[in-house]
């Protein structure tokens, strides 16, 4: 995080605030000597003759964020606007950087487990699953079947919870307040299960390397099935509230279009990719944790717009319920955690393991030097990579669409910045 970057963003601000400031800075070229100096983005300022106010120029630069209600955290989007129309934009990330990947190098393999929960904090269980599976691959450890099924149950519950957060906030961005409360009310039931299972609601640290720390609590099967029965009608309720709404259709259809080719070029994964009609789901393509045992569909969109991605995610919630039901009903007996040595020393080597997190393909690339500590852990965060498409999707649309597109990409800044 260089100081230059901050100085330059401030520069963009001050240009708009007062033309007098600009006069003094325009004659000071070393001020602008930073990583953005070759970007066409900031060049337009120099073309304006001194003495003009910013209203005389055709373009306005608007700093959206990092403190903004609908950038889903501390994302800064610098918008270049012509009236309401977006001519260009640039994402500035890093405000929530905590150096999690670096922390891994100073912890043992097991100690790093809780840290990954803080990546995508709306889907902590998924992060944990990806990390544990990666380390198990490195150790060549086999998780007992019951442990695998338990992991599937919790991960799919977590996907439901994550999609509920997405639904509430995305719809709120587009201006409807009420569905947020409905979604969060139902998410509460899932968080209660997490709380009963492992004591935490958000950053659960539910899994350990080799399996699960705890077995299912006595009433868990009944309660999870109860959620499955309950949530189907609740999803119908969201659908009735939102899907047919005229304003919702107008605001989402054709907004934030991305073609399948572009999706592949940008390495986009998850519901955004499937909304464009490409069938790629890591759970189907490279099954992990016994996903091959379950019967479920991968919902696909046709048009690649915000509305299709909304439908895809809603349908994914239904499929998650299907998976959970099968897993609970077929939950085998036995241990939940593999027998592993107290001190984990994976053999030297490297491994990449990816899972289908709620936001897309979450990958962990891990290098072991044979010691107790990871040599390097690199996370492939789906939010960060999906966010690259924001410019492609938003240029040419209106300010209100940018907000909708940020919502439909379903980013979590904890994961983007790490």
């Amino acid at each position, binding site marked *: 995080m260089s100081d230059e970057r901050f100085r330059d963003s401030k520069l963009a601000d001050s240009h708009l*605030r007062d033309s007098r400031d600009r006069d003094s800075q325009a004659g000071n070229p070393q001020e602008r000597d930073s990583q953005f100096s070759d970007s066409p983005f900031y060049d337009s300022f120099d073309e304006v003759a001194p003495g003009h106010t910013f209203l005389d120029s055709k373009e306005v630069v608007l700093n959206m964020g990092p403190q903004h209600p609908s950038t889903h955290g501390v994302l800064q989007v610098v918008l270049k606007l012509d009236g309401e129309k977006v001519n260009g934009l640039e994402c500035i990330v890093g405000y929530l950087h905590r150096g999690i990947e670096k922390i891994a190098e100073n912890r043992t393999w097991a100690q790093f487990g809780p840290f990954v929960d803080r990546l995508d904090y709306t889907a902590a269980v998924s992060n944990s699953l990806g990390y544990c599976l990666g380390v198990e691959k490195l150790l060549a450890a086999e998780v007992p079947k019951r442990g695998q099924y338990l992991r599937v149950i919790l991960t799919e519950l977590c996907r439901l919870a994550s999609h509920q957060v997405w639904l509430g906030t995305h*719809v709120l961005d587009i*201006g409807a307040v*009420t569905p947020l409360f409905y979604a969060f009310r139902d998410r509460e039931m899932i968080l209660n299960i997490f709380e009963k299972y492992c004591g935490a609601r958000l950053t659960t640290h539910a899994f350990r390397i080799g399996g699960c720390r705890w077995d299912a609590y006595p009433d868990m099967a009944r309660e999870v099935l109860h959620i499955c029965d309950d949530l189907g009608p609740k999803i119908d309720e969201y659908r009735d509230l939102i899907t047919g709404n005229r304003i*919702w259709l107008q605001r989402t259809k054709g907004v934030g279009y991305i073609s399948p080719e572009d999706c592949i070029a940008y390495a986009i994964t998850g519901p955004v990719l499937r909304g464009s009609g490409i069938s790629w789901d890591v759970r189907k393509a490279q099954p992990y944790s016994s996903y091959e045992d379950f019967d479920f569909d991968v919902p696909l969109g046709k048009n690649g717009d915000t509305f299709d991605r909304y439908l895809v995610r809603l349908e994914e919630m239904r499929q998650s319920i299907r998976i959970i039901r099968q897993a609970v009903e077929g939950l085998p007996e036995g241990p939940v955690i593999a027998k592993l040595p107290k001190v984990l020393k994976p053999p030297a080597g490297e491994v990449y393991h990816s899972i289908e997190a709620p936001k897309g393909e979450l990958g962990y690339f891990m290098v072991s030097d044979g010691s107790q500590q990871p040599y390097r852990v690199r996370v492939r965060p789906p939010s960060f990579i999906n966010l690259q498409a924001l410019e492609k999707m938003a240029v040419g649309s209106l300010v*209100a669409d940018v*907000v909708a597109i940020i919502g439909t990409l379903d980013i979590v800044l904890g994961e983007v910045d790490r």
Partner: protein
Amino acid sequence: MIEYILGYLHSDVTPGEAGNLFWVTVYVLLVFLGISIGVIFMNWFERKVMAHMQVRIGPMRVGPHGLLQPIADALKLIIKEDLMPSGADKIVFWFAPVCVVMTAFCGFIVVPFGRTHAITDMNIGVLFMLGVSSLGVLGVIMAGWASNSQYPLMGSLRSGAQMVSYEVAMCMSVVSAVMMTSLVTGTGTMSMIGIVQAQEQQHMWFAFSFFPVGLTALGVFAIAMVAETNRAPFDLPEAESELVAGFLTEYSGFRWSLFFLAEYAGMMAVSAIAATLWLGGWLRPFPHLLGGAAWDTAFSLVPGLGFILLGALCLFYTARMPRLRSMRGNLIGLAGFGAFLALLGAFMLLPGVRTRVQDIFWFTIKVGFFMYLYIWYRTTFPRYRFDQLMKIGWKFLLPISIGVVVLTAVIGVRQELLALVWR
């Protein structure tokens, strides 16, 4: 002097018409007070209704059922530091909220809460109200400009464009109602009181005249007035998820609360226009169908009985409250509030009072209906995008309202001609 003051009491016109300055002042104060209390009540009511629609309970802590919450909020806002951005245009920044509040309250000069319960009657009442209320956009644009910041600027520009485009459709539908006033008497009027009296003479609320023409005009007006007051789903000027708080972004403390006051006063003003023009203003339901002295008495009891019922409800919920030491304050508060409402209701049952109060009651009920719709919209709809908003205004509402005006004229002339033939 005393004669001058007491002399008005026997007249049956508004103080403005009677030219009695003392009572004009009293009425101005009363209306100002009433609107302010209305805003405070709306604040509480909106939060409660929204909460219950959104599976929560809303404010519960400050006073019984959060009744004192708006007062606590207002206190907080007054105490809060009043920031002014360093680059702001100080005079304009200071004047913008004043301008908005002034225009919002000015419109109430001609609002008839009853035959005599208006500050004055103007022969161009509707025009005056529309004109004054649309001056509010000036304050909004001033606020956006003076803040010297992009979000407020964009918000105020949106607001300006929005108000201008919806004003046209709004005025067209008003024209239709004004044309209807000329039907039976032959002379039309734009006076707010005259419009209500015309509905009385025609034995018909204008919402149901030439069915469904009047209703369509009301519908156009009801949509346009939501856009005019910048409320959801047309709340683009202050769209939280896009422009942070629009033209209010740089305002805080007391100045912000002035904008808040003006917004709600403006909502009440346009609701009052809608109620006056289409829903019979202060007239009680079915003044002719259920006419006669007996029905008049029965309907005049409704306000008092309604208040007594509210008081009884408060007392009922007081009885259901848990007897906890910590809730004693709330218990006494709610019981006291219920007793106050019941006493107020009993006072309204007095023969001299009830005939004067009933007009205000029915008018308030009709305005309250529109205010409830505002809340309902806000919890239900997503927000329109700017281009869609413009499209609705110009391509949808404007043609409909012009069609309504033409239809009103055609049907009205036909009806008058037929009446001539029959005579």
